[in-house]
């Protein structure tokens, strides 16, 4: 086919992509550049930040987050700690649950498996605000969860009002530590303005409800990714393993799980990237309370800017978070590129 038939294709090409270039350029690239500038200002959201009267403070906003002792750094460190625990629990739990769900739904002899798949996937497609509302109701002090726990003879905590760290509660219950009087070493040393004890006390009870909510809503999506990979495993592979006399456990251990490894990596890294962005649930369920134990960097960035009118600080937090997430994304893409290309990805 002669190329000359395609006159003016270059112009058409740019015409076709121009809406995309305009929208992404104006509402994604430009905002990032503007925010980068604002993160170097002390700006309260009122005057024009791009005039010469803007109050330029250099890297002060970043310094107060990372190096200077003070409330800003303590809050930021607290939000990092909370989110780190959130990531540490949510990612493994949702991955494991998604894998189990996929294995269940993939059982060819299970009756009603498509209904189950629908049930497992449904929370993923609903609005985060709506499901957060439901969880807020379920986990109230005298709510459904605590009623269930009471049947089992357990007195449930007042979930959203409980700032105590789960890890310190657990160790306290075992008599290993005394939550009210932390050991000297832990209380006297600090990183970023938080004592070792505060870093190590675990996610608060309130944070645990947000973790449960996230695991519940995201496991369905990841289940589908696992399920697609499970259905890609060549049947001959399973059959020959069965002929060799492999039992169920061996089949899972030596055939299924190795075949899922690339997808497992994908699900873990996707989870790692998305869990650092938790915001909606915090906004609806706790707004950082109790005792700042559900504060996350994303929410802190929002509340510094729109709550405390400190947009420079808020933008600086957003950029530290952005750097963290882009770093994780780069790692993921690098690692995925090094793996063998996935040949069966388009079904």
């Amino acid at each position, binding site marked *: 086919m002669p190329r000359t038939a395609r006159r003016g294709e270059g112009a058409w090409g740019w015409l076709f992509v121009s809406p995309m270039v305009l929208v992404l350029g104006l*509402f994604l690239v430009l905002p990032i550049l503007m925010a980068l500038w604002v993160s170097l200002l002390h700006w309260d959201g009122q005057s024009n930040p791009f005039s010469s009267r803007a109050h330029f403070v250099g890297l002060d906003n970043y310094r107060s987050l990372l190096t200077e002792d003070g409330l800003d750094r303590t809050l930021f460190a607290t939000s990092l700690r909370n989110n780190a625990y959130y990531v540490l629990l949510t990612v493994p739990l949702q991955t494991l649950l998604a894998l189990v769900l996929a294995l269940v739904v993939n059982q060819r002899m299970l009756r009603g498996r498509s209904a189950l798949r629908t049930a497992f996937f449904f929370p993923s497609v609903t609005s985060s605000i709506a499901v957060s509302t439901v969880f807020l109701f379920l986990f109230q002090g005298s709510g459904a969860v605590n009623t269930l726990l009471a049947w089992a003879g357990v007195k449930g905590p007042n979930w959203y009002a409980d700032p105590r760290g789960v890890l310190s509660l657990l160790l306290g219950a075992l008599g290993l530590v005394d939550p009210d009087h932390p050991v000297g070493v832990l209380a006297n040393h600090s990183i970023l303005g938080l004592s070792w004890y505060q870093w190590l006390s675990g996610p608060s009870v309130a944070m645990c409800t947000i973790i449960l909510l996230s695991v519940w809503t995201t496991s369905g999506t990841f289940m589908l990714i696992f399920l697609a990979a499970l259905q890609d495993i060549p049947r001959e592979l399973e059959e020959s393993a069965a002929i060799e006399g492999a039992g169920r456990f061996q089949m899972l251990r030596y055939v299924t799980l190795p075949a899922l490894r690339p997808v497992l990596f994908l699900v873990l890294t996707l989870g790692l990237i998305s869990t650092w962005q938790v915001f909606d649930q915090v906004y609806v369920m706790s707004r950082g309370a109790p005792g700042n134990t559900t504060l996350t960097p994303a929410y802190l960035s929002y509340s510094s800017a729109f709550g405390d009118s400190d947009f420079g600080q808020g933008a600086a937090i957003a950029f530290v978070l952005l750097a963290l997430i882009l770093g994780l994304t780069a790692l993921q893409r690098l690692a995925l590129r090094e793996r063998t290309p996935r040949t069966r990805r388009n079904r």
Partner: protein
Amino acid sequence: MTVKDATVRAPGRPVLGRFPLPARVVGWTLVAGLGLLYVLPFVLQLVTGFKTDPDAAAHPLSPVPVTPTTAAYQRLFGLSRAADGVPFLHWLGNSAFVAVVVTAGRVLFDSMAGYALARLRFPGRSLLFGFVLGVMAVPGVALLIPKFLVLNTFGLFDTYTGMILPLMVDAAGVFIMKQFFESVPREVEEAARVDGAGVFRVFWSVVLPMARPALITLTILSFQGSWNEFTHFLVATQSSQYETLTTGLARFVSGGLGSGTQYPLKLAAALLSTVPVAVLFFCFQRYFVQGANAGAVKE
């Protein structure tokens, strides 16, 4: 009877035989429990919407309202004690308006851009595709303040334009469409071109009609995305006039800590706000499934 007859020799027959009976019973119980875990919250949500406030507080787990009432729904639809902080119909109108416009925009602009990136030769194409991939990596929550800044500077803060315009194109949608157009054989287009059709005509009358499955997926994902959108509306608007189901409900629910619980009302509002996406989901589940897997292969 929990398991299909194992003697049927179908291609879907499992490689290994069936579990022994006790294992099947235990396994099925566990699976049923797991399913219940995913369904029960929605059931409780539905039932609680028909309870009175004291009933919801006293019997949060009861599947039957003591005195069934539609008071919550009457308030939401403005049939009683209207305009007391929950202008639900107004939220609904905003959500529907924004979602429809955004969906239409995304379907058109994403497929145009996807087609150009897949098929048209123009200078800067591969650079632009790299840009799209880069954009997909930018996390939305890091853009809250940046988006506010740009809308504020352009005078679009607290307007419908500011709510809609930034959502009109999404990089993931462009990516999905590009992948699709690359899988379409070139011959059809070439034939149309030989017949003298211009670039736009080939795109509009030949390529787009062939792209129906991808367009349906894109329509559904765009509608779901813009209907459930929260953070963008949160920073793009301020007045209650522009509240959508997500921002309105979020402010009502999270601000209501001191002002009584009103759970039947909150849960009924949350339930109604999920209905459109739920209906789409139950009718077009396989497109949602495709969407979930498209998200997985975007690297």
